[in-house]
């Protein structure tokens, strides 16, 4: 008797399930056919307007963090003279949630007309869905949409010869921050070579400070170490090949040497014993550096704002490694964010005009005030001429600008380069190597697996 009742419940469940599935399929079909209808309209190539989008509005979805204020201000300026209004929607504050929102909405009337991405890997599935508008026709009408931006940054979202993203917000290379007071007290100068760094670790341990702070609970900070040591040992060009799926790069001697370097740094106690419990988001590692409990931290340029108190804060390039195949000055980090445009936007002209705001002096100044260095060719001049910025902020922005401009290569963070589906796995591999869960061979195996998946 028990069985029959269970069966009945199951049957009920299944029939409901089936009804749901049918409903879902039906609606998704009608959704796609709607959008195909406008493909004959005149306008930029690839444009398929969707007339069920809101009238006389374009929606811009931005990450809901502090930097959104600059975009809101830009929309206010723009709306003064435009009939079609720009509406800024502030979405999630975390990148993963933000991406989920974009993906689940794209193609529906609720989808934003303009939204952000972090690089080519992130937009790949959207390209496959033909959801993005190529911006080349816009650039033809207004060449500054391309020429005003640093080429190495702009090129990240050029796919198969078509441009899909306009850089926005700041360039965020990664480099070494240090606490001046702590190094002074230990009688040290910022390390310029790997060997120096290794020997300073011992001195600093004697001073009872953590030589290098690391927010290990968040996993991505460990990855920065791999990015840099690999850049020094084998060079960013090789790294790029490896990330594109060339297994021989990961299995090479240079790769093994890089892993041995990192291992010896960990084993020397450079990061202390409890880095796995330190988080970045909870003011963990930044507070260590600010309060002089750690001497160094390898982090992106946003760290300046996170640390908050620049009194004792110093910054320098990542140490060189003798015998490494990398070129001098190669850097890693986050290139920029990019604005992408939905292929089914209703008002492409408004979109194009709003994108011009991204290189306007007003927008750039607003970004600088937030501590972001805009990825434009004239950003440095705004830094120098600004009256609002204090001396230390100017120094920092000038350093960042010089670092980016002098860099022969700029490798985008690994977790942003691998396919979006492998982002988490790549961070896990770095964290697992740091806490000893996998050894060098294990790491190599994982990277081969991650980079070979499509």
């Amino acid at each position, binding site marked *: 008797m028990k069985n029959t009742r269970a069966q009945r419940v199951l049957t009920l469940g299944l029939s409901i399930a089936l009804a749901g599935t049918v409903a879902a399929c039906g609606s998704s079909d009608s959704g796609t056919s709607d959008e195909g209808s406008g493909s004959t309209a005149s306008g930029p190539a690839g444009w398929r307007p969707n007339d069920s989008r809101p009238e006389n509005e374009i929606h811009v979805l931005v990450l809901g963090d502090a930097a959104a204020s600059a975009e809101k201000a830009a929309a206010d300026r723009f709306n003064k003279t435009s009939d079609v209004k720009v509406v800024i929607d502030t979405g999630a504050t975390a990148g993963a949630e933000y991406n989920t929102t974009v993906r689940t909405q794209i193609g529906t009337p609720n989808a934003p007309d303009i939204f952000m991405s972090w690089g080519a890997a992130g937009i790949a599935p959207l390209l496959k869905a033909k959801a993005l508008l190529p911006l080349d026709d816009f650039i033809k009408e207004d060449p500054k949409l391309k020429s005003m931006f640093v080429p190495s940054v702009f090129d990240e979202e050029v796919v198969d010869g078509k441009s899909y993203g306009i850089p926005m917000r700041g360039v965020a290379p990664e480099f070494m921050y240090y606490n001046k007071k702590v190094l002074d007290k230990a009688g040290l100068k910022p390390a310029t070579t790997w060997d120096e760094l290794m020997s300073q670790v011992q001195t600093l341990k004697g001073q009872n400070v953590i030589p290098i702070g690391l927010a290990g*609970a968040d996993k991505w900070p460990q990855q920065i170490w791999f990015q840099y040591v690999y850049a020094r040992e084998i060079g960013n060009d090789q790294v790029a090949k490896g990330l594109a799926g060339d297994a021989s790069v990961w299995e090479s001697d240079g790769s093994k040497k890089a892993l041995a370097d990192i291992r010896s740094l960990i084993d020397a106690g450079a990061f202390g014993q409890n880095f796995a419990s330190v988080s970045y988001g909870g003011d963990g590692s930044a507070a260590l550096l600010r309060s002089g409990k750690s001497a160094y931290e390898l982090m992106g340029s946003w760290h300046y704002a996170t640390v908050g108190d620049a009194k004792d804060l110093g910054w320098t390039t990542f140490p060189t490694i003798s015998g490494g195949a990398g070129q001098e000055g190669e850097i890693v980090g986050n290139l920029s964010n990019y604005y992408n445009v939905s292929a089914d936007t209703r008002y492409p002209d408004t979109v194009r005009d709003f994108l011009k705001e991204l290189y306007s002096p007003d927008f750039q100044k607003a970004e600088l005030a937030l501590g972001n260095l805009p990825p434009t060719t004239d950003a440095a001049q705004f830094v120098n001429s600004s009256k609002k910025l204090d001396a230390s902020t100017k120094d920092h922005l000038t350093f960042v600008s010089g670092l980016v401009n002098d860099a022969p290569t700029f490798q985008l963070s690994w977790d942003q380069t691998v396919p*979006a589906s492998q982002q988490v796995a790549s961070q896990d591999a770095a964290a697992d190597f740091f*806490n000893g869960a996998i050894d060098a061979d294990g790491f190599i195996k994982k990277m081969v697996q991650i980079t070979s998946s499509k």
Partner: protein
Amino acid sequence: MHRLRTTERAGTKRGGRPSAGRPNFVWSLPALLFFAFFSVVPLAVAIYLSFTSYQGIPLLPPEWIGLQNWDRLLTDEGLHKAIYVTVALIVLAVVTQVPISLLIGVWAAGPQRNRAVVAALYFIPLLMSTAAITVLFASLVDPNFGIPATLREIFNLPVDNVFSNLLGNSTTALGVIAFIYLWGSSPLHTLIYQAGARNIPEVLYQAAAIDGAGRVRQFVSITVPMLRNTMVTSTLIMVVGTFTSFDIILLLTRGGPSGGTSNLPYYMYDQGIAALDFGYGSAVATILIVIATATSAVMVKATGYDKMAGTQEGI
């Protein structure tokens, strides 16, 4: 169930009881349909998605791939680990929360005025969202600025002690998570036990006291048996809640170290939503729901809770 049905049938045959005044099935329809529309239908879609490859983009409709996701589940070590973590967290939750809530709840049920005031204070954590609680605790367990650092100073402990790397190994990280559950949700269970204990007729204790039963004896032979149903309800809410909990892990450890705190819901999020593989994520979700439902069904059977579904005439 079986027993219940027979009694019921017997009841109707006896015909003595008026069936007038009893609600028919229509009474339950509005709520059931409403619930079904917003949770069962989407759930069915999730099950459908588990047989597809889907990146979460409606423009790229789900592609039917049959049992591929399910094949992958069988050999997925991460999933096995996630099941282990889920079970471990439930066991930790039950063995810590049941005794503490029971003892504190029974204590708070006493008639003393000060106990009522204290009981009101116990309830405070329930007013905070899980996200808020986790953010609070995340700053408390920080090895350099949280409570571990303070303990180190007070007791002059070595730099590396048992508290210094709480989130760095899976055992202590699971302990921290279980503690946060305990802190955040035991107030509810305390309240349930408090209410349950107040329902126990005072006369039972008086009789026991006359028989010379001491406090412990009274607790074991009166309080606990009388609270049996309370315990079942509370534990059921606890088990299911722990089964489906996810916010704490997302905000505190992101499943780390090395998957050591990745329970099923988090694993689903990690593999499905974060890695944008909604097909596989849905397969994990289906497993999660099957296990959760089976567990609550077993609990319900084992404890006879389902008898409560009927009316009181069997009693």
